[in-house]
């Protein structure tokens, strides 16, 4: 019974229900569009559920994908965004870029190679910081621990 289409259909139907419930607490004018969306989601969710149950497609959507690599990218991105408010854009970006260069590169963990990558990561981070902050006067996230970086 469970395949990617039935799962998506169930999530769609749950979203339709949540939208309908939210609309119930709103004024008529604010709710009319939400109700239309909820009805649409319910109809197409039901169609997808029926399709999923009839076709019983068992293909794995993540076939050929390295789960460890996807997890590493996901966790690294989450940590990157989570750390910026504390240690600032330049420092976090330097750490983030260095990790990607080393982990997804040739994995040569010699001191000189690591140092080279740290330097490259710092130059890139600082370069983008300068372009946006000084060049275009656009705000770049700063950290609460070290201020400007």
């Amino acid at each position: 019974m469970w395949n990617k289409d039935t799962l998506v259909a169930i999530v769609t139907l749950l979203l339709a229900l949540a939208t309908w419930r939210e609309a119930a607490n709103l004024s008529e004018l604010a709710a009319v569009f939400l109700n239309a969306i909820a009805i649409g989601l319910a109809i197409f969710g039901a169609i997808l559920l029926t399709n999923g149950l009839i076709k019983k497609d068992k293909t794995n959507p993540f076939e050929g994908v390295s789960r460890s690599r996807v997890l590493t990218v996901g966790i690294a991105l989450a940590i990157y965004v989570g750390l910026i408010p504390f240690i600032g854009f330049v420092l976090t970006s330097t750490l983030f870029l260095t990790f990607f260069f080393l982990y997804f590169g040739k994995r040569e963990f010699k001191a000189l190679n690591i140092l080279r990558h740290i330097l490259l990561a710092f130059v890139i981070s600082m370069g983008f910081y300068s372009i946006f902050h000084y060049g275009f006067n656009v705000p770049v996230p700063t950290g609460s621990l070290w201020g400007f970086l």
Partner: protein
Amino acid sequence: MTIDVLTLLANVFNPVNFSLMTAGVAGGIVVGALPGLTATMALALLIPFTFTMDPVPALMMLGGIYVGAIYGGSISAILISTPGTPSAIATVFDGFPLARKGKAEHGLVTAAFTSGVGGVIGAVILLAMAPPLARFALTFGSPEMFWVSIFGLTIIATLASKSLVKGLIGGLLGLFLSTIGLAPIGGDMRFTFGFWQLQGGIDLIVALIGLFCIPEVFLILEKKGEKRYFELYKPKKGVARSTIIELIKKPVLLLRSSIIGVIVGIIPGAGGNIAGILSYDQATRWSKHPEEFGTGIIDGVAASESANNAAVGGALVPLLTFGIPGAPPAAVLLGALMIHGLRTGTELFTTFGHITYTFLTALIIANIVMFVLGFYGARQVARLINLPENLIAPIVALLCVIGSFAIRNNMLDVGIMMGFGFIGYVTRKLGFDPGPIVLGLILGPIAEIGLTRSMLLGKAAGNIWAVFFTRPISIVLIILCVLSLLWPVIVRQRTKKRIQIGEKVSVE
């Protein structure tokens, strides 16, 4: 008031004016190419530099920035699947697959050439027909805007290449996301979960960056092995010239896309993003090989880019004639006009005619300058694809962070962008295209405002249905919606017939 062409050209090619305009175009291209920095932002950032200038060079420079930024958005759309500006959303659909095939130069040259063509056509139409077109645009009320948005949503049939049902669910998901925040009419708070930052809704650019860009970071790195995600770009002589010759052989595509761009640009609230998507949709529908769209063909890039640059001219029509900006960057230009003491309306074409017509002529020249810069820069920019992928992926993520933060100076937007990125990656694996979601997000506010205002109008008039279904422009739009929905069915039937005839012939 008569102004001769030679005087206009002398003003435009005055060394100081021309240099400032060229600098504006170059600056616009750079800003537009950076994800998160829009044409509106480029204009707003550079307006202070024009405070002390005379009106003519100031407007020429700002016009150059506008034109350059809209084209610049295509560079990151083609190279890293991130529309540098919202106008380049549809450029991603075929531009990025071209880059992945090692044909980034084809995509970039196409973008430069067709942006130039679209921009020139838009500016010429603006120069020739501004007042009557503006009067037509003003006949669009709330019911018409509602039907325009519904017509826009019918494009999902084209964008959802994998599954129509999933495309429609994606579109509804986009509409749902567009309702987050303060209701436009009624003022209720919806789905904000206590975050005051969400009261203004989800920013389109934040969602765009997340849905298009972060999934690519995953896709670049998700597989082990030596095979590259991007094929290496190998520069070949004559690519640029042959691409342009190929494009010149498609005058109908270029003209149709540019006219769509101008019309959409004129309608207030519908900018280059909608123009690009609508034009892409039409190019797919009229193509003999619609199945090739989305796989990396220059026609897709040409349709989007000629339309979004033509929309620049379109957006200036209601701005110059009535002071109503057709798109957000045009609103910033309105500010610039006021700063320089120019009042929009008839006076702009009479008392200040020498300034206005010089500005409009400069827009045409700015498009040519933009083409030259894009043409000669394409090969150098395309080389970026050859960088190691473990270098490209994190730099893309870094740009995503800066871009999403820059919009509102808000870390929650960065978190939302990342959330959209994760959702975008998973949904792509589950067979969803990001296009319909983005389309829903763009058209949601227009559809909701159109629907609720029309309902209020209908209640006041005592007949809601009459407001929606009896106004002449609404009827035309409803017919277009029905045709748009039936078109894929008609094409499928025709293809089936053709195949059956082909089989019969081969059997005989």
